[in-house]
C-alpha cells in the first residue's frame, strides 16, 4: 500500500507536525508499504531539506504567494491522490488541514476520521483512536481502506529530519493552480509581539475561561508577578478581549515550552494542549476532576482557582 503524508510549511520553515505525519504513516503501514510526503507551499526548500524520512517527496510550489490557500492545497493534493492511488492519506489537524481533509473525503467518497491519536493496521482496515468532546472521551473506530485520517499534532514523535535524496523528489509548479483559485490571498498579518514572547518565557501562568471575567484577570496577574511569570490565556479569554492575541497559547496561538506552566481554569482541549503539553512542569487547577488538562499535568488540584490563588499568593509572599 502507498500512504500519502501531508506536510506544511511557510516562511522558510517546515511545521514540525509534518515529521510527525511521516511517523504516523509508518505506524499505519506494513512492511513493503511506501510513504510519500506531499508538500504544497511558497518555497519547497525546507521540505526538501527535512522530509527525507519519507520514501519520496511530491512537492508543489508557487513562489508568488506567501501562503498557499487550503483550496489550492486541496486541489494539488487531489491531483496527487489521483496519480498515486494511495490506500491512506494522513492530514495534520491544522487550520489548513481542517479544509483539506473533508474536501478530499467529499471528492473521493472515502471514510474520514478526525482528531486521531493512535493508528494500527488490521488487514484492509485500520483501527484508530480519536478524541471527541474536547478530549474527554476517546473513540475507537474501525476504518475501511482507502481512507483519510486527520491526525492530532503532538500524537506521534517527529521522524528524523534529513534531506530528501534528489532522485526521490518530484517537484511541480503550483502557480497555475493558485491563479485559478477562487480564494485569493490579499494579506498576511504577523502578530505584533511588542516585547511579549511567550515562546521564550521560562514561567507562564495561563488563565482559561474559568477565570470568569476580565476584572479577575488581575487576580491571576498578581500571582504571575509574584512568580516572575508571563500571563497567558486560552482562546476564549483572548477572544473575549481580556488578553491580547500574542498571549494566546495553543493551536492558533503560541507553542510554548516553559520550565513552569500554571493553568488556572483551563479545561485542556486538544487545541490548547498542542501549545503547552511539552512544558517541563505543568500545574493545573480546575474544579472538574475529569478535565483533560489533568492528563498532562504533573500536579493537579480540583479546588476553586480563586481560593487557590489567594492562598498561594499569600504563602509565596510571606514565605510561610
Amino acid at each position: 500500500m502507498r500512504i500519502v503524508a501531508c506536510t506544511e510549511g511557510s516562511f522558510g520553515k517546515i511545521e514540525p507536525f509534518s515529521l510527525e505525519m511521516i511517523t504516523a504513516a509508518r505506524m499505519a503501514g506494513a512492511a513493503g508499504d511506501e510513504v510519500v510526503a506531499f508538500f504544497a507551499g511558497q518555497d519547497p526548500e525546507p521540505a526538501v531539506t527535512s522530509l527525507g524520512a519519507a520514501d519520496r517527496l511530491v512537492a508543489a510550489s508557487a513562489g508568488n504567494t506567501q501562503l498557499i490557500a487550503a483550496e489550492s492545497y486541496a486541489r494539488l493534493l487531489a491531483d496527487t491522490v489521483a496519480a498515486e492511488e494511495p490506500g491512506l492519506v494522513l492530514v495534520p489537524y491544522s487550520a489548513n488541514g481542517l479544509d483539506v481533509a473533508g474536501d478530499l473525503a467529499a471528492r473521493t467518497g472515502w471514510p474520514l476520521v478526525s482528531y486521531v491519536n493512535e493508528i494500527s493496521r488490521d488487514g484492509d482496515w485500520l483501527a484508530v483512536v480519536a478524541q471527541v468532546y474536547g478530549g474527554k472521551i476517546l473513540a475507537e473506530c474501525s476504518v475501511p481502506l482507502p481512507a483519510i485520517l486527520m491526525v492530532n499534532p503532538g500524537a506521534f514523535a517527529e521522524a528524523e529530519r534529513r534531506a530528501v535524496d534528489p532522485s526521490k523528489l518530484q517537484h511541480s509548479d503550483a502557480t497555475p493552480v493558485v491563479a485559478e483559485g477562487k480564494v485569493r490571498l490579499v494579506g498576511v498579518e504577523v502578530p505584533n509581539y511588542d516585547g511579549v514572547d511567550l515562546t521564550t518565557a521560562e514561567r507562564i501562568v495561563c488563565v482559561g475561561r474559568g477565570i470568569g471575567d476580565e476584572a479577575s484577570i488581575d487576580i491571576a496577574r498578581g500571582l504571575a508577578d509574584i512568580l516572575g511569570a508571563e500571563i497567558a490565556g486560552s482562546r476564549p479569554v483572548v477572544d473575549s478581549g481580556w488578553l491580547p492575541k500574542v498571549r494566546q497559547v495553543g493551536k492558533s496561538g503560541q507553542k510554548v515550552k516553559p520550565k513552569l506552566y500554571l493553568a488556572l481554569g483551563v479545561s485542556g482541549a486538544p487545541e490548547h494542549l498542542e501549545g503547552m503539553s511539552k512544558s517541563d512542569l505543568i500545574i493545573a487547577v480546575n474544579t472538574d476532576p475529569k478535565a483533560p488538562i489533568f492528563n498532562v499535568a504533573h500536579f493537579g488540584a480540583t479546588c476553586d482557582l480563586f481560593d487557590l490563588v489567594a492562598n498561594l499568593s499569600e504563602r509565596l509572599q510571606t514565605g510561610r
Partner: protein
Amino acid sequence: MKILVVLRMIPDSAGELELTGDGRGIDREWLDFQLNDFDDHALEEAILLKEAAGATVVAVAIGEGSNRVLQMAVARGADEAIALEAEADGMIDSRAIAGSIVALARSKAADLVLCGVQSTEDLFGQLVPYAGARLGWPHVSGSSRLSIEASALRVTQERGGGIAATYEIALPAVIGVQTASKAPRYVSGSKLREASKTAMGKAASEPAGFERSAEIVALRLPGQRGTGENLGDNPENVADRLASILAAKGFAGV
C-alpha cells in the same frame, strides 16, 4: 445576499459525560445540550454582516433544544428559523448532515453558508469542507473576521503561531467561523418573548450520500490522570503543597 447559518446543539463538555451500556454512545438522558460555541460565533458573524451590508439570515438548528436556540437566533436578528430533523439519540455527525445542509443552501438560494469551524462531535469530518465541496463552492475554515467589500467576501483566517491570512472570495462560499468579529451579543427577555411568536419552519433530513464510512467500535474515557499527582481540593492544603513544590524546584523567589 442570503446567509444560511447552521446551529448545532451539542452536549456540554464541561459536564459529566457517561457512556451508554453498549459503550458506543454517551448517555444523553440527563445531559445539558447547548449551542456549539463556534456556531454561536457564526450566528453573530451572520448578524454583523446583515447589519453592515444588508442580508437575509436563515438560521437552521439541529439537535436537542433546537426551538429554544432558534428563538434566540431570531431575537438576535435572524429572519427565518428552521429546525432540521435529526436522528434522536445520536451524535450530530457533520458527514451525515452535510447532505441536508447542501439541500437547504440550494433550496433557500443562499449566497453564503456560515457555521462553526468544528464541533466536539464531528469525529467523521467537519461540515464546512463537506458542504463546500459538495456545493462546488470555495470554503475557508477558521475565520476571525468577515466583511463584504465590493460584493466580494473578505475572510481573515487564523493560522498557527498567531499568523492571520486574509483572503478575498467571490460568493457563493462556505465559511467555518472560529471567532466572530465581535463577541456574541446578549438578548433581552422581552426580545426573546417577541421572537417566540415567529413561526419555526421544519426541514426533513436528506441522505448523506456516502457509501463507506468509518464506524465507532467503542467509546472510552482516557486513562485516568496520566502520571500526575492529585493534590486534592482543599485550597489551603493545595497552596501549602504548591508553595513547597515551587520552592523545591527553585520557582518561589523571583
